[in-house]
């Protein structure tokens, strides 16, 4: 850095300075950075116990330098429940993919949310099983080809893509639920704001926080990173609408406070 310069953007300290194993254009890296920035900005780094899930982000613990425990596939919300009940004063979050959270882990996420566990969930929905090589996920779009629905997902046989944010918002224990995307700068910034809220409902003891983040898996979508971002805009967002589905802080601190957050 030159003398007369200021640093406008750099990697947060809690994000390890090492190359990731992700494919080019994979959005996991963006999500990691946002979480890392928030942990620093909110002063949570030394209070955090992170629960990693099984998926391409299984190595999250190599990239975010906080205490971490590895959950079996789909069970991160149960593991997080155990952590939080054992250590109620810690900040606990899970980071899960759509196969992990919406398929095998359906019972765990539903009940964790319904109990209103004071934990936060970062849900990376890329409509596919990334790590295992591109199988159909519960969120795979109709017509999308994967290795286990080679003709494209068909509603008749495989059902409709599941909308987790809406379902979680309908449960009693959730305090903040939003869906965002990482396909452009505006949405990335919006995602960070929503994640902050989801973390805040935990730190303020309000309840369970959940952000579904629409993300790209260029490799298994078999397209370039740029095309993948276009697909999010053109195919995913129309089916998975972005927005805040529930916000307990709105009732508690008033609309104005909520808006204030937005305006920051």
């Amino acid at each position, binding site marked *: *850095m030159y003398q007369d*310069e*200021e640093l406008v953007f*750099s990697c947060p300290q809690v994000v390890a300075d090492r*190359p990731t194993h*992700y494919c080019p254009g994979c959005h996991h890296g963006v999500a990691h950075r946002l979480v890392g*920035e928030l942990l620093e*900005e909110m002063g949570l780094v030394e209070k955090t116990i992170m629960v990693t899930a099984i998926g391409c982000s299984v190595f999250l613990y190599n990239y975010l330098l906080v205490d971490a425990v590895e959950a079996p596939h789909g069970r991160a919300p149960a593991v997080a429940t155990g952590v939080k009940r054992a250590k109620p004063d810690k900040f606990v979050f899970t980071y899960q993919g759509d196969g992990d959270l919406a398929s095998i882990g359906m019972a765990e996420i539903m009940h964790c949310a319904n109990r209103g566990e004071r934990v936060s969930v970062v849900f990376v929905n890329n409509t596919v099983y990334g790590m295992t090589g591109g199988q159909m996920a519960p969120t795979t779009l109709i017509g999308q080809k994967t290795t286990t629905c080679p003709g494209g997902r068909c509603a008749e046989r495989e059902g409709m893509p599941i909308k987790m944010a809406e379902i979680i918002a309908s449960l009693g224990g959730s305090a903040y639920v939003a869906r965002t995307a990482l396909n*452009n700068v505006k949405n990335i910034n919006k995602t960070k704001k929503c994640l902050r809220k989801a973390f805040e409902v935990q730190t303020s003891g309000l309840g369970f926080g959940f952000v579904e983040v629409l993300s790209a898996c260029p490799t298994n979508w078999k397209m370039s990173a740029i095309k993948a971002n276009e697909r999010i805009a053109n195919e995913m967002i129309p089916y998975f609408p972005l927005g805040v589905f529930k916000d307990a802080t709105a009732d508690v601190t008033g609309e104005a406070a909520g808006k204030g957050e937005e305006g920051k």
Partner: protein
Amino acid sequence: MSRIEIREDRCKGCLLCTTVCPKEIIKQADRFNQHGYKPAEVPAGDMKKCTGCASCATICPDVAITVYKTKKKAKKGASHG
């Protein structure tokens, strides 16, 4: 005046940064880096056009871009993102 630094060994050549630069100054290099990717770069001379908007850094999945801005006297430092 602003500028960016791309950590070439961390760049995977996904080119997402090239799509968000308002000045369209980020290009793909012709060479491979050690991991076999053709990294992004700002061709010599174009850097002066950079506004320091940090869009490229925000979208980069590999946190490969650092953004610097020449200090202005009265303003407070902006935070990340």
